[in-house]
């Protein structure tokens, strides 16, 4: 994705920003899956990204699965029809959702007309923001309850009614919400490109 021609343009254009956001989701999802132990740790290998090492799965099936999802998310982002992505971690046996990693996707209001007036956000700054989110995801392990049961995950996309949904690939589903009384929510950092603004949040089941 990072082409040699003017990397700063990535953040300006919708396409570039979409790719950036999609890529972020890939690494964020991988980080969560690793940190929360959804997949065994030795499925992951270290990759240099955003100026730090990120653990990325090398399980082919999972890789393909994420790719398929992200490809569609990418399309939705381009049309602006996805408003939220949720990675839910569900107990394998009881099927109750234990954690919901919520990423709100907001379109940044473009000043109509002379958009050139606003200085483009430097790529380095965006990367720093992304890095901070990923670091925060890693650090959440310190307060999230220890999961000692086998888990699975599910990725939910909140789209607008008018979204173009590929038939029989994406299906309407339950939001896998955690009961309000048992849910704790922690807001994480956010990052923004010139087009998108991503706000991260984690909700987890806490029966305390």
């Amino acid at each position, binding site marked *: 994705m990072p082409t040699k021609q003017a990397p700063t343009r990535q953040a300006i254009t919708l396409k570039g920003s979409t790719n950036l956001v999609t890529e972020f989701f890939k690494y964020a999802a991988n980080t969560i899956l690793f940190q929360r132990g*959804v*997949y*065994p740790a*030795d*499925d992951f290998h270290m990759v240099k990204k955003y100026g730090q090492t990120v653990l990325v799965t090398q*399980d082919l*099936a*999972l890789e393909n*699965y994420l790719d*398929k*999802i992200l490809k*569609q998310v990418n399309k939705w982002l381009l049309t602006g029809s996805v*408003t939220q992505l949720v990675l839910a971690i569900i107990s394998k046996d009881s099927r109750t959702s234990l954690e919901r990693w919520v990423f709100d996707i907001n379109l940044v209001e473009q000043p109509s007309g002379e958009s050139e007036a606003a200085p483009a956000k430097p790529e380095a700054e965006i990367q720093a923001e992304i890095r901070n989110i990923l670091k925060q995801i890693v650090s959440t392990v310190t307060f999230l309850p220890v999961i000692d049961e*086998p888990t*699975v*995950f*599910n*990725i*939910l*996309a*909140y*789209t*607008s*009614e008018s*979204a173009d*949904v590929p038939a*029989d*690939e*994406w*299906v*309407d*589903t*339950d*939001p896998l*919400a955690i*009961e309000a009384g048992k849910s704790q929510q922690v807001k994480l950092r956010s990052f923004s490109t010139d087009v998108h603004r991503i706000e991260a949040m984690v909700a987890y089941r806490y029966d305390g």
Partner: protein
Amino acid sequence: MSYLPKTPSTRHRSRSEAKTPLTPSLAVGLNSLSLATPSKADVSFANPFAASRPSSPAKRSASGSIQVSESLQRQASTGVIRKGGVESRLDVVTRDYVPPKSEKKRSKSQPSRDTRDRFITTRDPADDVAATLDLMSLNPQSASPGHTARLAAATGVPLNRRVLSYHEPPPPSASDPLLAQAREYARPLYARPGALPTSTSTATTGAKGRKISTQPERVLDAPGMVDDFYLNLVSWSCLNIVGVALAENTYLWRADSGEVVQLGEAPEGSYISSVEFSNDGLFLGVGVGTGAVELWDAESQTKLRTMSGHSSQVACLSWYQHILTSGCADGSIWHHDVRVARHKVGELIGHQGEVCGLKWRSDGELLASGGNDNVVNVWDGRIGDVAPGTRSAARWTKRNHTAAVKAVAWCPWQPSLLASGGGTSDATVHIWNTTTGARLHSLPTPSQVTSIQWSPHKKEFMTTHGYPTNAIMVHAYPSMERVAEIRDAHDSRVLWSAIGPAGDVVVTGAGDENLKFWRIWEVPKVRKSKESKDSSGRTGSTKSDILRIR
């Protein structure tokens, strides 16, 4: 709407314990009217139901009990969309909940009236109702639909939003159960202290680290060397001769001259399972896979005698003066007096599994043995006191190891110390005080312990290890700190080691068919220590002069 549940309540209470009134369902309906965009879908949903149950509206009107529905109907008659919305909702309810039992019950008193149902809580959300609700972006499972709708309206969240997920579930984590099992087995290998993949083939120095050469001084090719944990195929005599068994042949390598001599062969169809030099270095005991123990003259390279009797392979041998002790795969330990015709002078029964480690203490008082039954035994070394064939019991038995104990070694400078090391699933070195039987120290290591050698000059001992580190490690005693480590000393697990007569060089053998000589320890005062040994009775600073004169 509060009056809604009252009207049908008398009837409903009598026939069902579920008292959830009509409110939610109608709330849903009304919410859908107010919040959802008037969609054709509602109409289209309504029609099939109406078609499938044409009687229901008629029944409802006939009953006349539900005022609201009638009023709604009146309202609905003004607009097609409204009519479709409400009626579809009600029809869905009707169609959904038709338990045959209750129908039978009702059929007596109220024959055709109440097949319709308003109990939303009891219906299956996975049914086609769910599809209708999904169209409204309401979730029937997480909360009551009415609540969701009201909440949505209150918070200003657009209801026309869809929650989508990919149609197939994410792939299971370890799809291959065999792989998962293999991981499970491999985990202990890597989850051990010191098993960090940080330093490969470099000498890591601990706090009190000391640099040792990570390169062997000399490498000898040993083709045909058997990669078997339970055998003991390398011995180094005090005359500086290395005896090594390669499959069925025994070779002697003179360290002084580098000369190689083939000593002999195992009997046809068998193999050498152990070699051990006598303490004076003149004789070589050879254990054979058939169970025979051979005695060879290292000087003339002739076989002096064969002592048979064991039922299976003799995997370890140890000498004390004229007594050659052999450990057998059946768990028995025999003492052979090599001087007499009836060579078997003692039998020690204490192991359930194969005896794989056997060492006499240098003074002959104690004999240590380790077995495949994870047991370390220490035996009284006195032989003549009991009649031949008497089964003597071990002086003490230790079962702390959790894997085969192959590595046993007596400390040369503190006679009561015995070190023993366990196999793959144990990988721990225990140091015992053999006088009291106490366990003095324990040292977990990264991988299986295949042999232990104490340094004669330093308060250190060396361990050799198998997969995955294939390492030679040097530890301090009694701090048990790691002094040095040579990772991947061999390409395959390091199986055997023997220390040279000077106490500085150690030879290791491994399944990669190499013998490697490592200078582990320096002997800074070789002359002095040798002389002090020789002049053990004398004292004084001039003893070296005296010796030289003599």
